[in-house]
């Protein structure tokens, strides 16, 4: 297990198998079954998320995205690293240690039925 800060261009991260995803209009809603957290990714982060299958390193992913979007590779690589480290802190990547305070902020509480009013 590594820390999110150790993720670099040569890292080949993969999505955690404990995460369920729903993608709506290009935005991913992610639920971590063990941490019981929910978060939403913006469209850019969702594209990056969809590439994280462990088969390619982040430099390669950034290169692919740079050519698709017509943006300089070094700029894309910086954005990709920021986004993937953030995903790691949220506990969404296999083998990357989550940040406890980040997890706490993303916890999903369940509703309770109305308690009776003591009329």
């Amino acid at each position, binding site marked *: 297990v590594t820390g999110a800060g150790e993720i670099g261009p040569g890292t080949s991260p993969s999505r955690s198998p404990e995460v*369920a*995803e*729903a993608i*709506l*209009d290009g*935005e*991913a*809603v992610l*639920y971590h*079954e063990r941490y*019981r957290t*929910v978060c*939403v*990714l*913006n*469209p850019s*982060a969702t594209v990056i998320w969809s590439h994280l299958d462990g088969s390619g390193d982040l430099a390669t992913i950034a290169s692919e995205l740079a050519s698709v979007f017509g943006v300089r590779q070094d700029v894309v690589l910086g954005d990709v690293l920021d986004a993937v480290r953030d995903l790691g802190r949220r506990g969404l990547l296999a083998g990357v240690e989550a940040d406890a305070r980040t997890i706490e902020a993303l916890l*999903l*509480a*369940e*509703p309770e*039925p*109305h*308690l*009776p*009013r*003591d*009329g």
Partner: protein
Amino acid sequence: VGPIDVAPALTAEELASVTWAHTTRTFAALGHRFAVRSSGAGIGRYIDAMYAGCAVTGRDPAALYSVLNGLPGDAPHALYLGHDRMVQSARPAPILNHLTWHVNQRVIAERGDRVLLHAAAAALGERGVLLPAAMEAGKTTLVAGLIRSGFRYLTDEAAAIDPDTLLVHPYAKPLSIDPGSWEVLADLRPRLDPSTAAYLEGQWQVPAGAIRDDAISEPVGVEVVILPRYELGASTTVTRLRRSTALVRALEQTFRFHERGARDLDVLRRVVERARCYQLVSGDLAQASAEVTRLVQGDDEHAIGTEVGA
């Protein structure tokens, strides 16, 4: 106030010896099948009317509640489930409040395979609107207004979604109307004799059938998801929501979500994917009802735009 004298709980034999003035029909509140017997006839008849939308024939109750009054001591009112005393009180209102609360709890506990949202829901024809929101957001008041406007009732508390068909099934509990809405819904005040009316101090329990005959909807699909919020004095505004936002807000209102989180996420994704999604803020029931009607009819010209930011 000194300690009150609460009599010991009745034994099974003592409960069996009570003369019951009224026993209700069997009610099926989603998976919770129950009946209520009472030592007072007035409250028994009213509970029968409250849950009329859940009445079923030819099925025995799995749970039997007993509403007692006239017990010795300072707390003459009590509610039992089976042989277990649930609450005993000096006043009748906590008895009915506890009964409705407990039925809700059991509905959630016995949700079966359905996804259950803390939401109101109603239907205009076959077009369903889902109104997920936290407590005090005005769900019950809004759904009462919608029934007045021609909608049919599904629930004011727990919307049950079939994971296969994605239809919302009715949980036609009585609308639980808090004092803050008594003025705007004054015509719904239950007209009861004083001893029965005392059970509704603090919260009215109003069957949807009291608003309009034939008020209960068949199961319907969700065409519109609206996150309602009542704000005193606020002008009525509608904002288009990104579906991801609507989905997260729905997840936040899903009962027992973590038991089957991945499954429920997928079910709600499919619901939201097919729906138009809005946030509604209003301080006026008539305006809010009119706006929901327009949105369900497909007119969102009044919507002020799309939320921004991710």
